[in-house]
């Protein structure tokens, strides 16, 4: 039998606010345990949560970008469960009146994924399990960090589609400044709902939910594994059990989760501490009008406005800090295609060699713009400029200072070039003889020798012309 896989996603994304969703505790990652906690986020008696305005703003921005309808009126509910990562014994979420509904994401190849809803909620704490004792260590710093949960319809049929969706979601949220979406720090987390059914069937099979997916690679592999597992069960005439399963990276397999998931009876009820939210139409309109340019819009503009190739435009916009950097260099007067060449060439190589990310480019855009200008006007040749970039990359980017201090200005005095060319020819009689014997390669060697005599600083066109002239002369 031919089977098809049906997948829906629930993605949790931490919002880029400074403070938690209902209190003023910091959201910064990596603080010492239990230092970002207060009576509100640890659920002490009498504490009163107050909603963070910026969390609402960021969630609405995300909803608009995902094509959702933003509810004019929404409210918060309590999701009740006992687990040591949740000191309040309930999570504040939105069940009955979520912030956004009914969006859609185009993932390319003619496929659209429908978004069922997007709502605000708070994160839980972190548990560290001590293998030597029967205890766990609880750190509540993450309790109350604002999240949006984005729930799709079961519209995916393969791991590749899921990854394409997540890549686009991540890029969208990064461009909006809604979240940094660092999957390794847990600011983007994804649960997968998966079932299989005979191809062409309209009914959904029994689904399982996959958790503990710590990377896009893990997500793809867990999906492939779980689809295979369910198909094997069904082909042996055994049922798929509806359950939550945990991906084990080391064993490359999913296993049923125990405890927590047995009692999925969250007894939601409206949170009496939080008044409802009523959003003004005018405010929503102003937000919609102020949405920034998205990655794919930028990529299209780079091609039509600046004549970049589709590949270059996609690479530049694939990371927002890189696109911002590139645009800053162009803004400072560099011709766009030249700027793209430098950013995608020397600059990425320099970052790669240092293991740096695009948001941490030490070289100011003005330094690269200056370097490109010096090459364009013939003051530096390209190879020297690449050496200068490497030299000033970590040192504040004083291009002019470095060029002056090291006497690197391009030699464009024809007399100096001719002199060096004569000396090079005189010193390499064998190459000259080879050239006369018809070996074209010998000329390239001589050009290299002239360049070396001028410390690589000469205008290459000038060197070529000088060597040609001398070779003509020597015939």
């Amino acid at each position, binding site marked *: 039998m031919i089977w098809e896989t049906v997948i829906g996603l629930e993605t949790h994304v931490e919002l880029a606010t400074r403070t938690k969703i209902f209190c003023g505790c910091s959201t910064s990652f990596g603080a010492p345990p239990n*230092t*970002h906690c207060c009576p509100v986020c640890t659920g002490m008696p009498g504490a009163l949560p107050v909603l963070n305005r910026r969390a609402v703003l960021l969630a609405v921005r995300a909803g608009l970008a995902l094509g959702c309808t933003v509810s004019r009126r929404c409210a918060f509910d309590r999701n009740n469960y006992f687990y040591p990562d949740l000191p309040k014994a309930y999570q504040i979420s939105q069940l009955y009146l979520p912030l956004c509904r009914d969006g859609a994401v185009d993932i390319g190849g003619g496929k659209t994924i429908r978004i069922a809803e997007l709502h605000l909620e708070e994160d839980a704490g972190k548990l560290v399990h001590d293998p030597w004792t029967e205890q766990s260590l609880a750190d509540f710093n993450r309790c109350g960090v604002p999240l949006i949960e984005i729930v799709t319809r079961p519209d995916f049929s393969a791991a590749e589609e899921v990854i394409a969706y997540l890549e686009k979601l991540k890029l969208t949220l990064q461009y909006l400044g809604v979240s940094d979406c660092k999957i390794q720090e847990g600011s983007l987390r994804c649960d997968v709902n998966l079932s299989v059914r005979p191809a062409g069937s309209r009914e959904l099979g029994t689904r399982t939910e996959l958790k503990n997916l710590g990377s896009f690679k893990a997500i793809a592999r867990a999906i492939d594994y779980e689809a295979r597992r369910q198909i094997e069960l069904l082909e042996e005439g055994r049922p798929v059990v509806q359950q939550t399963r945990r991906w084990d990276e080391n064993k490359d397999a999913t296993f049923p989760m125990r405890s927590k998931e047995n009692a999925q009876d969250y007894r939601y009820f409206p949170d009496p501490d939080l*008044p409802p939210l009523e959003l003004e139409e005018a405010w929503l309109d102003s937000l919609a009008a102020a949405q920034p340019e998205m990655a794919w819009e930028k990529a299209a503009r780079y091609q039509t406005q600046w004549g970049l190739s589709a590949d270059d435009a996609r690479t530049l916009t694939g990371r927002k800090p890189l696109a911002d950097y590139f645009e800053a260099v162009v803004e400072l007067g560099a011709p766009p295609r030249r700027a793209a060449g430098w950013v995608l060439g020397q600059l990425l190589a320099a970052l790669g060699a240092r293991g740096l990310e695009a948001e941490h480019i030490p070289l100011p855009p003005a330094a690269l713009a200056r370097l490109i200008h010096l090459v364009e006007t013939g003051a530096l040749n390209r190879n020297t400029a690449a050496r200068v970039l490497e030299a000033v990359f970590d040192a504040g980017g004083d291009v002019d200072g470095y060029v002056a201090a090291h006497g690197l200005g391009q030699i464009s005095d024809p007399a100096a070039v001719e002199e060096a060319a004569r000396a090079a020819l005189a010193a390499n009689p064998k190459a000259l003889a080879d050239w006369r014997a018809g070996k074209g390669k010998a000329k390239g060697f001589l050009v290299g020798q002239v360049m070396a005599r001028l410390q690589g600083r000469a205008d290459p066109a000038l060197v070529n012309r000088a060597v040609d002239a001398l070779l003509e002369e020597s015939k």
Partner: protein
Amino acid sequence: MRMSEEMADYVAGLAMLELDGEERREMAGELEKILDYMAALDSLDTAHAPPPGPVLPLKNVLRPDEPAPSLPREELLACASARDGEYFLTPRAVE
């Protein structure tokens, strides 16, 4: 509505309560009375009534995204029934 002892036990389990036989019967009886009261409300036709809002005449209570001091860790951990220097200690949670 009939509230079985098993159902009472299930609800108690969700609330992390352990009930003995006598308590279970008592709880089942009390919960049954509550459900009967709900059933009386349920008999009203609410198809066209708007969902009930909060009782307080408030909306859009928001605060700016400005940091405020958190509790000193010592003070926070003083509330813990079990702790080590930096963490709350909890019964071992699986996975």
